[in-house]
């Protein structure tokens, strides 16, 4: 369980991979992962392949990430959500707000 942050060599793609439960406990780590990225035209890939649970604070964190990305002309992509995670995203109508890559 936890968050792993990796950056592409050019620093344009920041991957945030969440293992296990994506919930409030991760908020500080998650925020710290993007707060310093103020370079324009970046892509934040939130990898949800290994995520098995998501609560409303996770949705809130994603929205705050999006807000930050918008502020600096970057974008957010949700990558490989499982069917259970996809249901949570659907009920929040996130497919209209985020690009989702299977």
């Amino acid at each position, binding site marked *: 369980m936890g968050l792993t942050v990796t950056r592409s060599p050019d620093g344009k793609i920041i991957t945030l991979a969440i293992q296990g439960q994506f919930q409030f406990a991760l908020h500080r780590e998650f*925020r710290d992962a993007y707060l310093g990225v103020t370079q324009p035209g970046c892509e934040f890939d939130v990898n949800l392949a290994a995520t098995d649970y998501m609560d409303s*604070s996770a949705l*809130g964190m994603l929205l*705050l990430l999006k807000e930050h990305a918008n502020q600096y002309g970057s974008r957010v992509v949700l990558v490989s959500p499982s069917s259970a995670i996809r249901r949570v995203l659907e*009920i929040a*109508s996130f497919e209209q707000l985020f690009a989702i890559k299977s």
Partner: protein
Amino acid sequence: MAADFHVKNAVRWRAGLTLLTGASVGYGLALLFLGTGWLWPMLLLLAAVVLGWLAVHCSARATEAHEAHFAARAAPGLADFCRGLDQTVGEELRAIDEEIARTQALLRDSVALLTGGLQAIAMQSGVQQGIVRAVLNRAESTDQVKGVNVRNFAQDVGRMMSDFVDLLIQVSVQSLTTVHNIDDMVEQTEAIFAAVDEVQGLAKKTNLLALNASIEAARAGEAGKGFGVVADEVRKLAQISETINDRIRERMVGAKESIDRVRETVAGMASRDMNECIGAKAQVQDLLTSVEKINSEFTDHAAEMGGVAQHIEQAVGDSIRSLQFEDIVRQALDDARLRGELLRQLASELQRAAALSASPEELLVLMQRFRDTHGEKVGRGIVSQTSMDAGSVQLF
């Protein structure tokens, strides 16, 4: 009949006479054996002889009469034959007429009943179709009117669910922002704690310095007396400042505890399980789906019922048209009766002619003329209709 009577009479006579002959012989022989004299037995035997002759005579007559009777039977008169024919034909035709009349009455009643029943079915089917149409119209108008309607209700609930989820996420975002701000603030309080610690270190050092100054003042004696007073004041001030510092730290610790509690509460607001919402939304979706299904099934069934009513109407129409067979059958029966009547006429004409001692040849001529006159008429009366197919029904 008269010949028959004579034959029976002759046979009766012969039997009686034979019996008397036998009795006379028997009685005479009995008297002879009993020895009552010769006269009576002889008389009785004589009588037996006479009776025997009479019996033989009667037998001959009976045979003659019998033969004559059979001869008469073998060759009856043409008139008798025609009379018998007329009689038999009359009786049979009366029976046939009765049967035809009975069949026609039965047919009339049954067809009337059937027609009435079919018309009632057609009427009821029309009423049923009207009811279905009314129900359909009502369902459609309730759909249009914004009122208590399951579909609207389900859609409203779905909308409310979405709003609720949006609100939940919004609360999470705000709570997270608040928590982030609190965290930033906690970082600031950590700096305050550090500053307080520095102040405390300064107070302690001041206190120590003041203590040293007091000691040096005491060693200087009278000359250092004034300096000693100042050093004591400084020391007191250092102690007071340490006390104040402790109070600040105490308050700060209290404030930090409060902040932690607020953080905890706000964090609780940020974290909500989404599974309940997902379950509720799925239920609403199921409800909507089943309402749609019921609705479309209802519409389909109503349309089917309309189709069924049309089929019933058509089938009833066909059936009523088919009932025209009554007319065909009645006509055929009338025709049969007419033919019977002609047969009766022919029989009575033959009988009349034979009674006037017409020869067989004359009777044949009579029959031929009759056939020439009426044969065609009868043939034309027969209804050629044999099929009940729609469109080929003859109307009479």
